């Protein structure tokens, strides 16, 4: 080979390397922007929760106020209206936990049936599930309310919990997951060993699809925790209200400015901050289920 071709390849390789570096820098920049975008509201929330009501409106949103008022805000939050905040937290936690568990179990059972059994109408049912994924839950709230009113479940926590246990996206996820991650020969082997269908589901399927189930449980937990419209419409009694609806009533009160409402703003902000803590805790607790990866069930 001649020296010129050597130099040409050298230059080409160098150019390629610098192109790679440039695209890596671009990617990092883009991701940093996205990170900033996601963190800004959170930072605003954390900073604002440390301010007095006065500072909230007079100081820079992304800086501290003139005094550090977080502890006082927390005390005010818990004392307000005879401690109704904790009641709301408890309600939200109850609804979200039950809905998350329920959705995980239902979606796993339905996904298993759709993935591993042949029956008449299977494709139709799956098409309906897919269709349901497209419909936003909010659009279903009014018909759901009418249904609940007919079955006597309006102003009843079950009226929020039961609809939240239905997760079309969960059914879809679990079906796809099991179709690929659950070997048919495993189920056949269990049948030959004499396991009934229920035992197979409990002893073989459930342990192997745990990561998928946790995903569905988490999606439903967060979805229910953040749900505002459904509980707003279904629940009337104050003692049933979840955190979303509760904070909103305070917010309305604050805007009207009556009954010492103005002071409420810093309390609401602090309440909002406290209300995201359980979601973070749940995420951290369930994280370990994903560490094995979504193919934890496979041995190859």
């Amino acid at each position: 080979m001649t020296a010129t071709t050597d130099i040409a390849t050298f230059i080409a390789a160098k150019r390629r390397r610098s192109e790679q570096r440039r695209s890596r820098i671009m990617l990092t920049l883009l991701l940093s922007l996205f990170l900033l975008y996601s963190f800004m509201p959170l930072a605003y929330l954390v900073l604002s929760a440390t301010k007095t009501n006065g500072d909230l409106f007079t100081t820079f949103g992304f800086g501290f106020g003139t005094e550090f008022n977080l502890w006082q805000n927390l005390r005010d939050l818990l004392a307000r209206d005879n401690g109704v905040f904790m009641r709301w937290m408890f309600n939200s936690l109850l609804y979200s936990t039950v809905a998350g568990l329920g959705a995980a179990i239902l979606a796993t059972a339905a996904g298993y049936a759709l993935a591993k059994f042949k029956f008449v109408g299977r494709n139709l049912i799956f098409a309906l599930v897919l269709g349901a994924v497209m419909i936003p839950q909010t659009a279903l709230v009014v018909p759901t309310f009418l249904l609940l009113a007919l079955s006597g479940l309006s102003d009843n926590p079950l009226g929020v919990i039961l609809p939240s246990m239905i997760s079309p996206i969960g059914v879809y996820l679990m079906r796809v997951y099991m179709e690929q991650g659950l070997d048919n020969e495993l189920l056949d082997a269990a049948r030959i060993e004499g396991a009934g269908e229920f035992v197979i589901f409990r002893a073989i399927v459930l342990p192997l699809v745990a990561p998928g189930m946790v995903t569905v449980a988490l999606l439903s937990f967060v979805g229910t925790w953040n749900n505002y419209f459904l509980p707003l419409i279904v629940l009337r009694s104050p003692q049933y209200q979840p955190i979303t609806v509760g904070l909103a009533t305070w917010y309305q009160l604050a805007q009207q400015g009556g009954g010492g409402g103005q002071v409420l703003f810093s309390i609401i902000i602090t309440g909002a901050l406290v209300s995201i803590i359980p979601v973070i805790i749940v995420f951290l607790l369930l994280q370990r289920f994903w560490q094995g990866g979504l193919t934890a069930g496979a041995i190859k």
Partner: protein
Amino acid sequence: MTDVAIRSLNKTFGALEIIPDLNLNVPDGSFTVLVGPSGCGKSTLLRMIAGLEQPTRGSIAIGGTDVTYEEPSKRGISMVFQSYALFPHMTVGQNIDFGMRIAKVPKEEREKKVAYAAGVLKLEKLLDRKPSALSGGQRQRVAIGRSIVRDPKVFLFDEPLSNLDAALRGQMRVELAELHQRLKATMIYVTHDQVEAMTLADQIVVMNAGRIEQIGDPLSLYEKPETEFVATFIGSPKMNLIKTADTQAMGVATIGIRPEHLEVCDAGKWSAVVRVVEKLGNEAIAYLDSEVGDLTLRLVGTPALKPGDQLRMSPRDGHVHYFDQHGRRMAGPSS
């Protein structure tokens, strides 16, 4: 008596007829191997014997009892799968124990049986491991262990060794043969590896497109294949099939000669040119272009052949197979 008797079995998936009409007897205590090309219905047949698939028509009897509609676990069978099908979240011990736990076998007996199976299969040190921490051969032993403790009257194997490398496959083959001698149970074994078929079987069933082409012991299949299909399917390298005008004039559509039954000699019948030679040390396989088409030749030792060489050869007397135009074996030229 735990023979398996299959009568007029038919299996159709939707509009697709996989097995048209199949009759088969598997004698008590035999090692029966099902062979055939991919997609010919071997697994489907085995799964119907196991009860994992329902036949469309026909009946299956195990040990004289009709089990056509019986649950898999009540047929007295066990099955070892190609993918091993071990439960990944259970230890080796728990995998072997699984069926007995479901059947609520007393703990002492379970432990005894697990220990026995582990002893037979050299798994003692692995009982507390998860399947993901085992080698392929060890996994296959666990799968076999799980089927031994069921005390099955009939063992079913679906290509159990096909995921293993060649050396391990050879070793496991010997272990399976020993297991059969030790347990004396009826075994039905699916494979498309014909070395496995020839070495393990006392009865080989050659299948093609859902039909049985021939049933027989390995040597009779090798020496007297009933059809052209069996002739080319059994034996490696494949039997040479020759169609020439003079054979057809004798009323024979095709003659078949195994590669080791061609003799090189100066006065040979056909002339040929060597295309490729594979030297394996103890023998050599030569691929030839001849006046009667492509031929394969097997020679002992290391012959001094190289591509481009010209040679002549003839079939050895008494080692020529004759087939009619339907591919069926016939006695010889009619004239």
